[in-house]
């Protein structure tokens, strides 16, 4: 990072690669104001499109963008992760996520965002990540099955895990979970049931062994030396 970089590190998008610039200019021509924002992550192109431009984005990605390969479709829930019961214990084996709501590269309007990655099998290092905001109360998007047949299973998974409905999907039914399953497990407010039953043992569950006291003393010495 150059020394004259601005203070806010997260909002500093790394430069796009040559290929990513080329895709960006092609998709800009094809989609026009359908693109809300563009950004880069480590050379890769990330585009956020308007909701009504989601299906045209796939068509443009396949046509003008020359991305014939669908890598994946999935979603992100930007709601901050709920606090865990044992967060105050100082146990570093338990990740503590920040409480404030932040959105990643190219931002988001609300809680749910669907994103997909397209690539080209004919070119080198040629790909684009597309993002779209969906309505929190009525998450609904047009299906990509007509453009990329592989979208079928990815959309079923996204529907099952996040509750995003894909209009025009031939059979939106459960993929991984039993058909009577209720809820959307990858939403942040869906608890990890194993943790609800028993908190993560982390460091506290380890039974002390012979010589542990001496090891702890050595660790403390090492830490103070640093």
């Amino acid at each position: 990072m150059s020394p004259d970089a601005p203070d806010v590190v997260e909002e500093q998008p790394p430069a796009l690669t040559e290929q990513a610039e080329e895709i960006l200019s092609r998709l800009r021509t094809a989609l026009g104001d359908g693109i809300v924002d563009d950004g880069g992550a480590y050379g890769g192109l990330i585009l956020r499109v308007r909701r009504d431009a989601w299906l045209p984005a796939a068509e443009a990605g396949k046509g003008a963008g020359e991305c014939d390969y669908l890598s994946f479709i999935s979603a992100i829930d930007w709601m901050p992760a709920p606090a865990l019961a044992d967060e105050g214990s100082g146990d570093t084996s338990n990740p503590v996520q920040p409480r404030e709501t932040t959105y990643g590269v190219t931002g988001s309007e609300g809680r749910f965002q669907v994103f997909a990655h397209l690539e080209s099998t004919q070119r080198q290092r040629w790909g684009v990540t597309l993002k779209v905001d969906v309505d929190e109360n009525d998450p609904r998007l047009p299906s990509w099955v007509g453009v990329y047949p592989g979208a079928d299973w990815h959309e079923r998974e996204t529907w099952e895990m996040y509750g995003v409905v894909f209009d025009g999907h031939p059979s939106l039914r459960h993929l991984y979970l039993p058909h009577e399953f209720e809820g959307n497990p990858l939403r942040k407010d869906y608890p990890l049931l194993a943790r609800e039953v028993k908190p993560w043992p982390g460091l506290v569950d380890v039974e002390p062994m012979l010589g542990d006291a001496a090891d702890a003393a050595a660790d403390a010495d090492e830490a103070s030396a640093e």
Partner: protein
Amino acid sequence: MTTTPPRELPEFDVDSTIYKHLADSQMNVELDTGDMILNIGPQHPATHGTLRLVVRLDGERVIAADPIIGYMHRGYEKLTEFRTYPQITTLINRIDWLSSFANEVPFIAGAELLMGIEAPPRALWIRTALTELSRIATFLLFLGEMGLQVGAITPAFYGFRDREYVLNLIEASTGGRFHPNFNRIGGIKDDLPWGWIADTRECMAKVLESCDTFEDLVVGNPIFEQRTRSIGIIPAELGAGYGVSGSNLRASGVDWDLRRDGNPHLPYDQLDWKVWTHPDGDSFARYWVRLQETRESARMVLQLIDGLPSGPIMAKVPRIIKVPAGEVWVNTENPLGEMGYYIVSKGATGPFRVKIRSASFSNVSILPWLLRGVYVPDVITILASLYFILGDIDR
């Protein structure tokens, strides 16, 4: 010369309709049969785990197939949100359990990109060598097992035997045959043990020899050819639309390999190797491509151990790993296809969201299209030639 008169039908027939059909010039009027629904799996040797396939049959012919997955769904995407980065490598080892080492590499590469850490060259070369070794181990199992699915038992023994040599090498360097958990953010856990390079050279000679054996035993075998040629053809464009990747797509003539065409996370550009493709796209092509790739990987391992740079194996990494906020998409060429992680970090010790893109998931999603119209015995060869691991589908 007199023409023979039409054959008289027997008067007393029990099966008079059948005789009428036989005598009729329209012999190919299809007999009226009801559809039958057949469950293949969840436990079937061709499925490497628990994949259930519900097929609707008209006689011997499949008219619709619906794969039911999720028997091994372990919810890794949810679990990653509750774990720290070093803990997650333990989980993702279990996605594709035949090539666990190759699963770790893209995730670690993504975390390194976000943290701005560069692993030293020696670590990258050892990573590449172990990735290629796990590719060889995975493919050797395939080369043997594919023979088994068409009724040849001998190749399976060769495959398992030679795979064991390779697994011994992986165990000698990482400590684990299947789940090495050997990658660290910033490098690898340990250096190679004494004598490993000589052992590897010896083992690669065995692997190359065994590839010749497979070529003689299986590829040139007329029965194998009849069972696999023009069976289960994946058109290149459709395969790409379904997200089919790796050797399966290269067997359809698509010259696309992320080791060469993707972002360079491992030093493949410093090796002399080639990407193999086959124009046919059938089960035979998939076998043939994997056989050539096994050879190519063995040659790559030999180059890697010859040119192994010296130096440290770990970069300087903070004691508690906190990954700065950001997003990164990293994909690499796993033995089964494109393996990728979309990591969203918010600056904590664990990721906020990890999307795991596994190869087999997309490779298998083409099955409803691919199995339409094939015969039941060909279902098994198609399943075997696609070569998927259930953990890689269900995550």
